[in-house]
């Protein structure tokens, strides 16, 4: 398999709290990897370590390596801004920029990275919104405020916004937890489609969702990686007792 991320001895702290303990795993390219585990196990911290978002929280610290395309993103000469441009992120709650139109929400990443040409921007906005399956719903309202869309549309707008800067990876932090079942189904279908061309890492509370959308599943518990493998194997034949207990609802 083509490895997109090779994570070696990853540790993370908030102040003196040790939230991730010695994580070692490889994440495959153009596949969906789900991170599951009970609340507070470090799922969100884990994916925030993959695009150096963890370090923007005051008092946080990381050690270990995250090798992405052959380069450790925590190496000294690596610019976190460039890392984040390659590794996009979608958050738990839809967070479109409140004062911007739908168009600007998608175009802003490119605009602030120096793209001025109107045609290029128009094309990128359309392509991103189409990729996010939102184009047909908003094509006549591109000037409307991004905040005026429904929750599910806002989340797809955020996906389009992340896609517009042409990342290779999309990190998704419980992208459906604030959405109703219909909006959730749309996002899940979108994730499967995007996985053809993007590497996707998704954190989810919802085990059925992990089973539906992911190719690989990692189970985290108290900051440790307990089990990691093909989703089918994890769900049908977990090797570790903790994984089985979590999946069968004995705790969590």
């Amino acid at each position, binding site marked *: 398999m083509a490895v997109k991320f090779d994570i070696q001895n990853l540790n993370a702290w908030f102040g003196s709290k040790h939230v991730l303990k010695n994580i070692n795993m490889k994440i495959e390219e153009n596949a969906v990897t789900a991170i599951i585990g009970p609340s507070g196990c470090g799922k969100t911290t884990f994916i925030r370590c993959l695009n150096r978002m963890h370090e923007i929280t005051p008092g946080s610290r990381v050690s270990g390596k995250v090798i992405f395309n052959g380069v450790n993103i925590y190496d000294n000469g690596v610019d976190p801004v460039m890392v984040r441009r390659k590794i996009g992120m979608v958050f738990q709650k839809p967070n479109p920029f*409140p004062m911007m139109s739908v168009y600007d929400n998608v175009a802003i990443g490119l605009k602030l990275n120096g793209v001025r040409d109107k045609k290029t921007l128009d094309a990128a906005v359309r392509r991103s919104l189409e990729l996010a399956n939102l184009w047909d719903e908003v094509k006549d309202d591109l000037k409307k405020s991004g905040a005026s869309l429904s929750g599910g549309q806002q989340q797809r707008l955020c996906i389009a916004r992340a896609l517009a800067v042409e990342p290779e990876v999309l990190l998704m932090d419980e992208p459906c937890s604030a959405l109703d079942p219909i909006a959730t189904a749309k996002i899940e279908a979108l994730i499967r489609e995007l996985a053809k061309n993007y590497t996707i890492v998704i954190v989810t509370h919802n085990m059925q969702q992990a089973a539906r959308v992911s190719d690989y599943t990692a189970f985290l518990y108290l900051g440790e990686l307990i089990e990691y493998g093909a989703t089918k194997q994890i769900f049908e034949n977990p090797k570790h007792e903790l994984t089985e207990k979590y999946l069968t609802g004995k705790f969590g």
Partner: protein
Amino acid sequence: MDHHKFRVIKDRLIQFLVYLALFSALIPLFSILYEVGARGFSTINIEFFIKPTPTVGESGGGVANAIQGTLITIGLASLIGVPIGLMSGIFLSEYGESKLSVAIRFLHDVLNGVPSIVIGVFAYALITRSIGFSVTAAAFALAVIMIPIVTRTTEEALKLVPMSVREAAIALGIPRWKTTIIVVLSSAKKAIVTGILLSIARIAGESAPVLVSMGFWRWWFAGLNRPVANLALNVFIFATSPFENWVALAWGSALILILLVLGISIAARVLIKGRY
């Protein structure tokens, strides 16, 4: 006595006291508005807006030079005070908690509490003594009064922008400074503009620091190293003068000043209402 009745009476009594307090607080406000409105309005005519201060004994005349001077002074003060206040506010909100930011916040609170006359004397010592009584000195004094107001309102406005908005921008690979200037400031711009407008309303009526650093002036704008006329000082000087038409102009100036401040405050309220 029936317990319920007792509570009803207590409730009525407290309600009565609250309304009484409210009305006694409103009496001075409305009597000022009424008096200034009634007396000021009768002096206002076209001449009032296009003619400068009359010389002693001359009839008629207006406050055109004072309107011009007040606008120039406020404009200059904003030119100095708004950028500094804006940037300190951004620093306090966006660049984390450090000993420096705690100290800056404390100093702004102190500055906010300094009597304006003291700030006037400060401007006098620093600027008036070197370049003379001038609009520059007055604008400097007013800028010092503006800075803590703009700083604190900017800081509060930026803190209301959800962290998720900053994170969304940073996760797009937008550098931190661009995130702050374009994404965060644009999300808070209405609240920030409101704060700036309120600080302008506050300095528009200041008289003590203006008197100390610039003094009274009866003519038009004559350069940055010279004084300009000022509405608040018009009220002070004209009202206490023995000339009837100057006293009338004082009422007119007071009315214009109140309307100016009221106008700015209303603009600020309208902006607040439109906030997301």
